[in-house]
């Protein structure tokens, strides 16, 4: 395009096109998906003949079961153990592990120290790096690959996520004095379940994520915190509830043209009788479609700012499906100061995405 030509009337275009220029979406994967692989030093030896292989491998597998992610043999070279394991000499170490004499003899010839990958490959890029050092096992994970290369979303899904990012910015600017805003979406339609801002209270622990979780609870006839706000009232005999939405946010969205086609509301809890629900009915309630709404199961959360540790853990307890956020925060617990979603011991794990500009 001629640099001197007048700017094309971009504003007239539908919002969708602008969004594509504004944001990308990047999955924040845990460290085990990192591209630079970790190496450890290991002892290897070269066997005299291939006839020794079977006996050697069988005994190593039983008595020194290291390197599950690697192939134990590379040509006639055999991996014995990490060098860090050895206190005295290799021979002593093998004796301590009751390696029989003839295998020990075979292993103690032509000993080398080699560098091998410390853990298994999760992604093909890692695998391609690793095989330069030593042959390894690899089970491709299509979904992990798609998260890594960004092909996990369809065009329309990607567009919706970006619209939510834009919405967070607008709501924060127009209704919340630039303070954090959070949106909860049921991704099946998709439909906006709840919206919360953080300007409601100056209390140190009432962050907007904590409000949002409580507003979602409202949509399930729960909720613990008193709010200054009015919430949308449901009409009679409705199939979904708007009760997680503060009236001010709802009115704002209704009044904006570019939000016209958005859907609102949460599925009603399936157990509609007024009996207090029992825990045993919730045994396998982590599937939104199967069991209906329970906490934030299956829901997506969009945040203006990366959540702190308290909020990030609140979203683990609430079983959210995915978190999307725009800006990193100093005390953020998903990328900045910690990666809560990478803690394996937790009983629930959500996916995390950051909008990139």
């Amino acid at each position, binding site marked *: 395009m001629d640099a001197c030509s007048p700017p094309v009337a971009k504003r007239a275009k539908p919002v969708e096109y602008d969004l594509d220029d504004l944001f990308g979406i990047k999955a924040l994967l845990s460290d085990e998906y990192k591209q630079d692989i970790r190496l450890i030093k290991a002892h290897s030896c070269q066997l005299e003949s291939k006839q020794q292989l079977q006996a050697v491998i069988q005994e190593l597998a039983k008595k020194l079961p290291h390197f599950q992610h690697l192939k134990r043999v590379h040509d006639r070279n055999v991996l014995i153990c990490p060098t860090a394991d050895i206190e005295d000499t290799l021979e002593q170490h093998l004796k301590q592990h009751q390696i029989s004499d003839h295998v020990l003899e075979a292993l103690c010839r032509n000993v080398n120290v080699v560098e091998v990958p410390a853990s298994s490959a999760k992604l093909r890029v890692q695998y391609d790096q690793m095989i330069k050092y030593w042959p390894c096992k690899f089970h491709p994970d299509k979904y992990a690959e798609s998260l890594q290369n960004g092909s996990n979303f369809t065009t329309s899904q990607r567009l919706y996520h970006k619209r939510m990012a834009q919405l967070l910015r607008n709501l924060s600017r127009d209704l919340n004095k630039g303070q954090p805003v959070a949106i909860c979406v049921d991704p099946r339609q998709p439909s906006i379940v709840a919206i919360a801002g953080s300007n409601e209270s100056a209390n*140190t622990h009432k962050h907007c994520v904590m409000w949002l979780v409580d507003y979602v609870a409202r949509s399930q006839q729960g909720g613990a915190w008193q709010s200054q706000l009015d919430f949308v009232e449901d009409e009679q005999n409705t199939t979904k509830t708007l009760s997680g939405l503060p009236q001010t946010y709802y009115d704002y969205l209704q009044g904006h043209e570019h939000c016209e086609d958005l859907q609102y509301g949460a599925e009603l809890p399936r157990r509609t009788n007024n009996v207090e629900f029992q825990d045993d009915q919730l045994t396998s309630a982590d599937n939104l479609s199967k069991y209906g709404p329970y906490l934030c199961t299956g829901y997506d959360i969009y945040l203006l700012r990366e959540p702190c540790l308290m909020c990030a853990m609140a979203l683990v307890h609430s079983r959210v499906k995915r978190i999307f956020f725009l800006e990193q925060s100093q005390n953020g*617990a998903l990328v900045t100061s910690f990666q809560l979603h990478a803690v394996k011991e937790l009983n*629930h794990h959500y996916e995390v995405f950051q909008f990139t500009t």
Partner: protein
Amino acid sequence: MAAFMEEALVEARRARDAGEVPVGCVFVHGDVIIARGGNEVNVHRNATRHAEFICIDATLAYCREKHLPARQTFSEISVVVTVEPCIMCSAALHTLAVKEIIYGCENDRFGGKTVVDVAAVVGQQINITGGVRAEEAMALLKEFYKGDNPAAPPVAKKRK
């Protein structure tokens, strides 16, 4: 201070009787209990309504009523809770900078000390004492779960 654990256990039993996970907590300010509570997750359909959060909210109400500065009051509070605070509660208590935390049994699922070092992430050190009447606290949990956590997702569905 550990004598207040009996009061926390009372709250834990009350939570159990209400069909909630049996964890109880009291906040002690100058030898006086100013807030007490048990888990209220199920009744509110809100997974963050842990005993500690009930007490944090109650403390703020107490400060408003007595015209006390909240931040300073929290710095003088001993948190006595039957189970090690989870990562969320521990993060909140560290951020509020309470004086100390005294707990009963460990929480090896979500513990803010056992599973994640919350003090290091938040950047705030608090005196923490564990193991006070731990067997009784654990017995309540075991009785409730009977070896199986009804709130946990199905084990078979291992996510890739």
